C-alpha cells in the first residue's frame, strides 16, 4: 500500500466566517451583539442594533446560534464568555481559532459527559469569576482587559485562589485538547497523517515544518 497523500496544510481557511468584525468599532458591535444575545437572543439583539448590525449578525449566525443556546452545563451568558476565552487563548491566525470551531461547545459537552461534578464546578467558578469583573460580563470588556485578566490566571497570580487557578488550568487544557482534536486544529494547524508509512527516525524538521496532529493516544 502506498503512503496516503498528505498535502501540506496551512491553506487559507474556509472564508465563510470572514464577516467576523475585525476593526475595533465592529468588534465592539460584535461584543454588544454577543452580550445582548445572551439576554434576548442573537437575532433580536441584531435587530435592535439596526440594519448594519443585522447583516453582521446574520452573516455569522451559526456562531451566534451557538452562543445563544445554553450549554448542557453553562448558561448562555457563560457560553458567550467561554467562546470569547477560547478565541483569546487560541486565536484566529492563518487558521481558525478555538472560538471559531466551537471549542466552547466541545468543552461544555466534554465536561458534562466525561468529568465529575466537582471538576465541572471548578471551570464554572472560573467563568463566573471572569464574568463578574464587569457588570456587562467578560465579553463586554476590551480585548486588552480580557487578555490581562486571562494572563493573571495563566501566570497564577498570587491574588487568585488556588481553586480558581486549578480551574483555569483545567479550562485551558480543555481548550487546547478541544482545538487540536478538532479538524481545523489537527489537520490544518498541524499535520495529520492517517497513514504515515514506514517509520523514519531522522528527517530534517524543515521537511515537515509543523507538528503532527494525529496520535495513537489522546
Amino acid at each position, binding site marked *: *500500500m502506498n*503512503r496516503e497523500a498528505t498535502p501540506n496544510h496551512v491553506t487559507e481557511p474556509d472564508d465563510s466566517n470572514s464577516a467576523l468584525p475585525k476593526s475595533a468599532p465592529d468588534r465592539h458591535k460584535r461584543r454588544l451583539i454577543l452580550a445582548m444575545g445572551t439576554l434576548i437572543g442573537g437575532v433580536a439583539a441584531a435587530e435592535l442594533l439596526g440594519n448594519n448590525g443585522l447583516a453582521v449578525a446574520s452573516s455569522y449566525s451559526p456562531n451566534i446560534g451557538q452562543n445563544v443556546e445554553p450549554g448542557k452545563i453553562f448558561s448562555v451568558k457563560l457560553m458567550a464568555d467561554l467562546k470569547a476565552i477560547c478565541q*483569546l*487563548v*487560541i*486565536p484566529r*491566525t492563518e487558521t481558525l*481559532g478555538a472560538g471559531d470551531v466551537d471549542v466552547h461547545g*466541545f468543552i461544555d*459537552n*466534554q465536561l458534562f*459527559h*466525561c*468529568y*465529575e461534578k466537582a471538576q465541572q464546578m471548578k471551570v464554572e467558578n472560573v467563568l463566573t469569576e471572569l464574568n463578574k469583573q464587569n457588570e456587562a460580563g467578560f465579553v463586554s470588556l476590551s480585548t486588552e482587559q480580557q*487578555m490581562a485578566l*486571562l*494572563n493573571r490566571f*495563566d*501566570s497564577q497570580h498570587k491574588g487568585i485562589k488556588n481553586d480558581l487557578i486549578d480551574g483555569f*488550568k483545567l479550562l*485551558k*487544557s480543555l481548550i*487546547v*485538547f*478541544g482545538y*487540536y*482534536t*478538532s*479538524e481545523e486544529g*489537527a*489537520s490544518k*494547524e*498541524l499535520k*495529520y*497523517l*492517517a*497513514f*504515515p*508509512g*514506514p*517509520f*523514519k*527516525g*531522522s*528527517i*530534517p*524538521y*524543515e*521537511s*515537515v515544518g*509543523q*507538528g*503532527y496532529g*494525529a*496520535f*495513537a*493516544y*489522546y
Partner: protein
Amino acid sequence: MQEHTYVNETKEEFDVLIVGSGITGGWAAKEFCERGFSTLMIERGRVVKHREDYTGEGKPVWDKPLRSRVKLDDVNENYRIQKQCYAFNDATKQFFGNDKDLPYSTEKGTDFSWIRANQLGGKSLLWHRQSYRLSDFDFEANVKDGHGNDWPIRYDDLEKWYDHVETFAGISGSKENLPQLPDSVYQPPHELTKPEQDFKDVINTHFENIRPIIGRCAHLTKPTELQISLGRVKCMSRNECQKGCSLGAYFSTQSSTLPAAANTGNLQIAPNSVVDSLIYDERTNRVKGVRVIDNDTLAEREYFAKVVFMCASTLGSTQILLNSKSKKFPRGIANSSGVLGHYLMDHNYNASIGGTLPGYEDEFYIGRRPTGMYIPNFYYKPSLYKSNFVRGYAFATSAFREDWRQMANKQGIGVDFKKKLKHAGQWRIHMMAQGEMLPRYENQVSLHPDKKDKWGIPQLHMNVQWSDNEREMMQDAVEVGTSMLKKAGVEDIYGSANDTPPGLAIHEVGTARMGKDPKDSVLNGYNQTHDIPNLFVTDGASFCSTAVQNPSLTFMALTVRAVDYAAKEFKAGRL
C-alpha cells in the same frame, strides 16, 4: 471465513478442543489444523471478524464528539477496572470486557487489576506486541537463586519453536548477540531517532552490561510471501493497533493464525461459549470434553474431544481447572499437587524516569513508531545481582518531540501560544522499568466460596502483592535510570517509583506451573498435566518465573512445542 466454520450445538467428537482464541489458542488451532486434526476452538465471547468488526479503526479523532474519551457514566458503570489500561478509549473499548459482567474479589489489603478481552482473538487484538525470547539465564534463575521451582525446560528445548513462530508471525528487530536476550528470526528493525542513537552510544560507552536496542515487535516490516498470501501487509506506523488493524500489519489471531487454521478446512469455532468446567472420566483418567454456558442465553451445552488444550489465559484457564471438581480431584482437576492457583506473577512497571534533551531542533521523524527502545535486563545472573534484591528489570524507553499534549500546560495564551503549539517542541526521553516478580506461594487465586458470576461460575478471588524485592528493584531502577540520563546530558530529570498494585502489566503468569516434580507442579515440560495425559495448559499459567521479557512470544513457542508433542503422543496412542 465461511459461516459454517461456526458451530453451536454439535454431537461431533473432535480430535482437539482448544479453550480460548487469543495468542495461545490461535497458535494451537493453527498447528493442530495443519497437522490434520479436527479442531474446535471455543471462545467465550462474540465473533470479531478481521477488518469488518474493527469499528474504531480509521476514524479521525474529530469525528468523535468526545474525541476518544469514554463517557464517565459508562466508565463508572462498566469499566472501572478496564479503564486503567493505557489502551482503553472510545475506539478500543469494544475489545475490553465489561467489569459489571466479570466480577472478581480481592483479599482485604490487596488489589489486582484484571484486564479482560473476551472475544474471538482475545488479547491478541490488544497486546503491545513486544516480542522477546527468554534465555537460559531466565530458565535457570529459579534453581540458581532458590526462588520458585526449576523450569523443566531450557533454551535448547524452545529455540527451534521460537524460530518457527517468529518466521510466521513476523518480528521486527536487530541482531545483537546479547547473552541474556537471544536473537530472533527478524524482519528489518524499526529505526531509532537521532537522539536515541546518541543515547545508545553514550550508554554503550559508559555502562558495562547496559545495551540499549530497538524494541522487537510483532510488526511486518518486510512481509514474506506467506504473510502476504494471508492478507497481511507492511506496517504503516499508525500505532493505533488496539483499534484493530485491517492491514494485518501486526500479529493477531485474526490477521495470522486464524486464516491459516481456517485454510486447512479442519477448524470449527464455537463462539459465545463460556466454559464452566471440564468433563472428566475417572475410569479412563481422561478429559472427555467441556461443559459450556451460552454467553447470551445461558443455555448449557457440551463439546467433546480426545484432547483438550487450555489456552484461556492464565487466570481464565486456572478458573476453569479449579472449577472442574470430581471425587478424584476435589481441589480442581489436575491439581493433585495443590499448587494450582498459586505463584501468580505479573511484571512490575512501577518506576519511571525521564527528562528533556537539549538540542536536535532540526531533527524530526515521520510516523508513529509502534515500538520503542528496549534496554535488556543487566542483572541477568546471580553474579550481577544487586545486594538488596534478586533478579532484575528491563527498561522500555523512547525519545520524542513534545507536542500540544505536553505543551498544553505551559504558560501563554494568544497568538504566540498558538505559534508555539504549531511546532514540535523540545525533545523528551522517557524510561519505564519492567521488573521481574518473584514466584511466591502466597500470591494465589482461588474460587470464591460464595460469589458467582452471571453464568453461575464461582468468581476468582485474588490475593497477590508485591514483595520488598520488587519494591527495592524499582528504587534501583530510578537510581540507575537517573544516572544513565545524566550521563546522556538529559536535563530536568524526574524519576520516581510508585506502588501500583499488580495486574496492569497484563503479564499475569504462573498459576498452573510446569515442573519436573508432580508434587509441586501442575504441568510437565510439554505443558501436559502430570495427572491427566490428554489435558494441556499452554498459556501463561504454565510459567515457573516471569523473567523480565514480555511473555507472549514464549506463550507462542511453548504452545507450538506442546502441539507437536501432543500430536506425536496422540498418533502413538498414548493420549
